[in-house]
């Protein structure tokens, strides 16, 4: 596949007074792709989205859209559809007028506007609500109307700022699927900001993990999940055990008795953190305390299909997740041996 860059965020930095909100963000967004900016609050993800939308100016760097520098273009000339965290539906307008507002500004009036609005209401599966005031809509309906309003203007870029955070868990799940389907249907290049790693994993073609205003890793979600770039990414993407395994010797460390070879070069003597996901730790019951990799179950809970354990081993607590079948016969206080597949352990230099 040839690379087709739609938007190039070219070394963008942003300073607020004395705080660096963004530092040298360089990102190429493929045409038609769904990019998620993921990070904890205060990582600069919303600032980056607002710079793309034009509501903030970058202190340094530029935005290149289809080869044209749009850094100095005001937001209303960019024509990027945006869905806000508060949704920002116009409360004094009906659903149809909300969706039609962008069309009206483009001189699409009368029957042409009405047809386009109806078409969009059809797409968001709410064909009969055109004349309702937005205050009469449910949370999910508002969500869909906000998305339809932004897509009505056929934007080159579709921007979403934590649009699903106000919905309850089940509705959010459904909306994620719908949002992804809509995005694919319209084929619009999309940037979504979220702090929810599940949402990001579910939606993104390309996941950009931000922390303290800098990109920690930018890759497809499965790659980030399986091969996190550093201990922060491993931790933030959920349920990884971070274990201080001490100094590296001969390019390998000892993880509770399992030698793990480092994939990336580390200097001998570097202090190493090993990251391993809860579901990648093997668990076998043992009777004696003979081996070094034996721990004791200090907590367990049944999650239905899986059971989660906390195993105390050499003064550390490890999370382990196994299928519930494997949990048979195990209880709090049971002695278990932990096994690791070195291929599923990531090593990072401790900082």
């Amino acid at each position, binding site marked *: 596949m040839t690379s087709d860059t739609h938007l190039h965020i070219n070394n963008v930095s942003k300073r607020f007074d004395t705080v660096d909100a963004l530092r040298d963000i360089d990102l190429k967004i493929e045409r038609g792709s769904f990019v998620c900016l993921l990070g904890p609050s205060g990582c600069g993800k919303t600032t980056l989205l607002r710079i793309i939308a034009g509501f903030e100016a970058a202190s340094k760097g530029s935005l290149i859209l289809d080869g044209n520098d749009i850094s100095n273009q005001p937001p*209303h000339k960019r024509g990027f559809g945006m869905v806000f965290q*508060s949704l920002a539906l116009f409360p*004094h307008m009906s659903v149809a007028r909300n969706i039609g507002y962008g069309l009206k500004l483009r001189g699409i009036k009368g029957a042409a506007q009405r047809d386009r609005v109806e078409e969009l209401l059809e797409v968001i599966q709410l064909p009969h609500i055109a004349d309702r005031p937005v205050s009469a809509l449910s949370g999910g309906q508002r969500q869909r109307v906000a998305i339809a309003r*932004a897509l009505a203007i056929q934007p080159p870029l579709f921007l979403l700022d934590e649009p699903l955070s106000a919905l309850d868990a089940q509705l959010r799940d459904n909306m994620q699927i719908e949002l992804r389907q809509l995005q694919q249907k319209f084929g619009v290049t999309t940037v979504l900001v979220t702090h929810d790693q599940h949402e990001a994993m579910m939606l993104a073609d390309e996941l950009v993990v931000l922390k303290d205003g800098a990109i920690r890793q930018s890759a497809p979600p499965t790659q980030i999940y399986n091969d996190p770039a550093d201990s922060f990414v491993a931790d933030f993407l959920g349920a990884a055990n971070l274990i201080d395994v001490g100094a590296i010797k001969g390019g390998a460390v000892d993880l509770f008795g399992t030698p793990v070879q480092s994939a990336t070069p580390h200097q001998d003597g570097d202090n190493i953190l090993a990251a391993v996901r809860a579901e990648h730790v093997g668990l076998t019951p043992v009777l004696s305390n003979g081996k070094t990799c034996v721990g004791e179950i200090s907590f367990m809970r049944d999650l239905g299909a899986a059971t989660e354990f906390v195993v105390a081993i050499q003064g550390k607590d490890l999370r382990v997740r196994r299928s519930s079948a494997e949990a048979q016969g195990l209880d709090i206080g049971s002695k278990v041996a932990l096994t690791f597949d070195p291929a599923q352990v990531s090593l990072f230099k401790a900082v």
Partner: protein
Amino acid sequence: MRVDLLPTEGGGSYRFVILLLATCGILISSLPVIVVTIMSFSAADNTGFPPEALSLLWYSEVIALFTSEDANSAQSVVGSTVTSLLVAVIVMAISTGVCIPLAYVLARGDRRIRGGMELLFTLPLVFPLVILGIAFLLVAESLRLELGIWRIVIPHVALVLPFVLRNCLSAMSGISIELEEAAVSLGASPLRAIWDVVIPLMKAGILAGLIFALIISFNEFTITFFMYTVDVSTLPIWMYSRTASSLDPSTLALSVFIIVADVVLIVLVDKLIAGRASLF
């Protein structure tokens, strides 16, 4: 079963106290209106209360005042009424014209500046009105200009601004900046976004401010008393001149007309602030 908020035990003494307070409050605020209304129906030309006989004599007198030009008085009641209305309309236009952009800038700007500006605009309210009247008179005289109606309009604007500004500000505070940004992201210029989104949402606050401006300006006496001239005078001044030496019951009948108009307007303000009415 619904539980009453106030305890009913203890012989209903709480209820009694509350009823008493409410009655006192209503009496104090409405007694003058009641007295004036009753007296305006008096048949006698003295001002004894209660009137011995009732008639519509003074109402026909008021209508006669408005329909027949009185050559004797320097400033006729018609002239004063027209001036009053003209002043009120100009004051409404100027105060909203100033306050809508000002409220927008203050609401979107620095919080500290907002506090300072609100205080500044509230100054005419805490200043003794008589002194304010003298101050405006001094300024007007030292200008040595033929100010015409503006000698009354300008002090009225100063008095009315805090009310209008406050209404506009509270209307602004409910309008999230994301709404404007949403309009801008859809292609509206920043000014267009204000026109299409902010102004319609401020509508109730603006109208409430307008009605406040109208009532305050139309009823203003103290400052106007210093500022009026033979050519430019308002209805409250005319009424005062009719009652200063001896009370003329026709002014009472006239007040009833004004009270009715004011009540209608106040009910309107109430509805607007509650957000139920929509006039446009």
